[in-house]
């Protein structure tokens, strides 16, 4: 029997503390990146730091609501929540507002609202629900297909909104599916696809083909139990075909600005005058963001003391590039701290997921960890030039109401599920 007072301590306080650390430190950096030098007015509802303060306060309300709802609600109503999310994504095409080229927002007068931020949580619930169904077995192609469709519908809708970054987040579900029994061939295929794509773009089709033939043949002849020659030939052909497809896609299908981002990332452009031009245009953000991070040095210039932050040298600094403010003002100590907190948070969620008794909770927890991970990896990787520029926010850290609330709900549903695991015997 549980005593009444223990109810409060069922929640995983470590996760909650890490959550507030990120939100609080994030807000300090938003303040730094968005204040205009005049006296600070926290409640003018104009400057991003003031708005974000309100968003954070409202997110506390959301937390209370999310934790108050019965844990069973999330599992039982997951399909309905998913349907509502899909409808809200479709509705954007009719009532939506376009910001920075992406039609992803509803205009609510006082603020804009981005349904795709909430669709992640809804999709996570739907996927968890489907996987945890006793009839589902991811070994079978039929079930695989169904779960892919569940993930693909919101992803495609978001892609149609012209928000490529948010679409890529749906790749996070791969980790969930793999954990829950998706055959390893998918993992291998995914890795091969990435390797072939990079090889093709960086070194060309011929080298890729040679690499593919050599490595597949080597695999073929070193195996004790020889795979059939037809199968091996098919694999090679598929690789070559895929290589051509990548080249074709790069040259003709993908938009110019994305092509440039890939070109910068893989350092494909060699002409110095072109590079100089790029540094002024497509590579400008990356260049400025690396400079800002680097200028912070080991211990940073101090809170509100960043000259590049004050001068607004990094565009979109309070949103996608918020990490550069950390880099400039808090130095290596600050950036390492942020990376550490994210890693701890994700590992904590993973750890809790593995402790879940129900498959639904575990799969959902995995989805939460994966979504946080993908955002963390892409955002910080992009800011430091490790991966091509993809515009997605740093969870809980970047400015934005929808984003903050989306992640808050995503995370706290899991905290609620986790707190309820004792009842699932």
């Amino acid at each position, binding site marked *: 029997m549980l005593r009444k007072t223990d109810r409060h301590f069922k929640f995983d306080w470590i996760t909650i503390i890490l959550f507030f650390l990120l939100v609080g430190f994030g807000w300090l950096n938003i303040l730094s990146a968005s204040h205009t*030098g005049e006296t600070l007015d926290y409640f003018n509802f104009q400057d991003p730091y003031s708005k974000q303060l309100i968003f954070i306060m409202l997110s506390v309300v959301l937390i209370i609501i999310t934790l108050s709802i019965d844990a069973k609600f999330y599992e039982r109503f997951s399909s309905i929540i998913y349907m509502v999310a899909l409808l809200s994504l479709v509705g954007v095409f009719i009532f939506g507002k376009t910001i920075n080229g992406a039609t992803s927002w509803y205009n609510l007068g006082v603020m804009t609202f981005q349904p795709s931020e909430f669709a992640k949580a809804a999709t996570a619930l739907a996927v968890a629900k489907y996987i945890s169904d006793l009839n589902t077995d991811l070994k079978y192609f039929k079930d695989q297909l169904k779960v892919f469709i569940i993930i693909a519908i919101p992803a495609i809708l978001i892609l149609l909104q012209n928000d490529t970054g948010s679409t890529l987040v749906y790749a996070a579900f791969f*980790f969930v599916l*793999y*954990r829950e*029994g998706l055959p390893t061939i998918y*993992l291998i295929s995914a890795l091969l696809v990435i390797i072939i794509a990079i090889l093709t773009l960086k070194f060309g089709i011929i080298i890729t083909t040679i690499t593919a033939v050599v490595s597949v043949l080597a695999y073929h002849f070193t195996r004790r139990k020889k795979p059939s020659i037809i199968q091996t030939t098919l694999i090679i052909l598929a690789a070559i075909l895929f290589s051509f497809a990548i080249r074709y896609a790069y040259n003709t299908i993908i938009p110019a600005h994305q092509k440039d981002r890939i070109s910068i990332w893989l350092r494909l452009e060699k002409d110095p005058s072109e590079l100089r031009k790029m540094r002024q245009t497509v590579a400008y953000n990356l260049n*400025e963001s*690396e400079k800002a*991070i*680097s*200028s*912070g*040095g*080991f211990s940073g*210039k101090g809170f509100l003391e960043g*000259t*590049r932050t*004050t*001068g*607004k*040298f*990094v*565009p979109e600094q309070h949103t996608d590039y918020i990490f550069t403010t950390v*880099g400039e003002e808090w*130095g*290596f100590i600050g*950036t*390492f701290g942020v*990376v*550490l907190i*994210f*890693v701890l948070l*994700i*590992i904590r969620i*993973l750890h809790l997921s*593995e402790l879940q008794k129900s498959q639904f909770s575990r799969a959902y927890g*995995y989805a939460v*960890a*994966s979504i946080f*991970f993908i955002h*963390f*990896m892409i955002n*910080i*990787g992009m800011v*430091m030039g*490790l991966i091509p520029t993809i515009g997605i926010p740093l969870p809980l850290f970047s400015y934005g109401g929808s984003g903050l609330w989306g992640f808050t709900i995503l995370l706290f549903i899991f905290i609620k599920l986790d707190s309820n695991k004792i009842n699932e015997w």
Partner: protein
Amino acid sequence: MRQFLLFISVVIVGLLFTARLFYLQVYASDSYSLYEDNAIRKVYKYPKRGFVYDRNGELLVANQPSYDVMVIPREVKPLDTLEFCQLLKIDKEQFNKQLEKAKNYSYRLPYVFVSQLSKEDYAILQEKMRKYEGFYIQKRSLRQYETTIGANVLGDIGEVNNAIINKDPYYKMGDLIGKQGVEASYEDILRGKKGIQFIQKDRFNRNIAPYKNGTYDTLPEPGKDITITIDAKLQAYGELLMQHKRGGIIAIEPQTGEILAMISAPTYDPNALVGRKRSKNFTKLFYDTIAKPLFNRSLQGVYEPGSPFKLLTGLIALQEDVIDTSEKITCYTGYKYGNRFMKCHCASGTRNDIISAIEKSCNAYFASTYRRILDKNGNASLGINRWSDHLKSFGLGNFLNNDLNVGQPGRVPDREYYRRIYPNTFYSTYTISNSIGQGEVATTPIQLANVVAAIANRGHYFTPHIIKSISGDTIPSKYKTPIHTTIDKKHFDPVVEGMFEVYNKGTASSLKVEGIDICGKTGTVENFTKIDGKHTQLTDHSIFVAFAPKDNPKIAIAVFVENGYWGSRFAGKIASLMIEKYIKGTISRTDLEHWLLTHSLEDEYAKPYSGEPFGINRQAKLQVIPVDKEALKIYEDNNKKL
């Protein structure tokens, strides 16, 4: 296995990010400096550059305001370009070109549209300026030379080049720095110290606000004024006399080492290197490789000293005790050594002691004393080294280590120097031309003037220098410390007596100045050039050294006139007039002055470039010209200002 995939991925990504951050922020990051931060605009406040005065307190160099027309392309509104171009004295094409350049530079930032307007142009433009939106006038400070004299002395200022910027972080692109003359050697004192203002800017390069409310800003410190040792009136007079001639003059006050005049001819108006016309004029001067107006002949011109060098040969012989003042050496119209012969002007059988040998400039006398010096201990190798050391104690063969930014060491040979030509045996006769200042010895006018100062002082000299005083500061003590030569004081008297006789009845007797006891020595130096690769002799250089008065000397002077033929023909006349000008302030030998103003050597200088065969020395006809009215007027204008 399946539950670890994401866990491992998270850890790997975490480590990768940490490594990348460490690289960006710790490994590749320089320690932060406000000066290097390109998010902070550094606005420099330039101090007033110090003034330059002559030894009598006459202002020589001051500052003048100059006005740049600036443009901010974004703010330019349609305007009456025709009128605007007329005001700026440019044409429509230039107008468009400049505006295009400004746009290429930046739409938002000011760009120098027309630089350095004159005061007059500015006055007219200022009233109409408000009509032209996007344009405004920015004030800068330029040098103002009060007279046209002393271009080589005063030097000029110009924009720093990259080499200097890289070496000295004080200088930034577009800063001005002393390039030549005292502007260069006293740059640190004249320039003062820039003030700086830090301004936070945004990514469009616009100013936002003073960085940290100006806590780090500093005020400029004005440059200090300096007084130089030059006597402007003497300098002006020397430059007048050197019109239509090439060469150098140095006058030194023997008792202090102060340089009274430093003339290099041809010279130019220092105002030519100020303002908008600077680059055009500098290019013209720089590429004049025949007259070389930027080459300071009084400091950099290395010439064989000729007969004045006999004074040193005499002094060394006395010090080495190889002759005494009573000994007479017979001259048979020259000096025979081995099967060779050095000619002399003396009548055959003339018997000279040291005084009359100097008076008559007897080659035979000094050739034989030179041999005695080298052969003193029967070893010419040791002898020439001893001879060389004596010469070096007069400041020859090395830089004078003073406050003039250019110079030449000249040449004083020793045994080592001759090793290449005479590796084994070495006899005094091999180098006998040195005895009369030809051969391998070479000096600059300032070195020779310094030798004369040392003789005038009877044995010591002060490092010749150009600085007299610095306002609120002291001058280095090395300029106040006498440097003693290796010759005893008593040996100078006969040499001075000989120099006095040169004026009294010797080679310069026609140059006497009433009321001043001048001691001097003429020199006539053979010289050669290469024409189409052929070794060709030119008319001799005319050289003269002198000091006055004989007792308690006030001025020591060395005059080199290129291709002026014999010593008293050009150089002697100039030296006498300069001495009279300095000591008396007025000129009694107007005949000499008139002669100099009406005789030119420009034909002589043109000869080697004419491509025609030409005669030298006796076969050359001296060019007579009318008095250069323009030069005379400039001289009088300068004098009015002094």
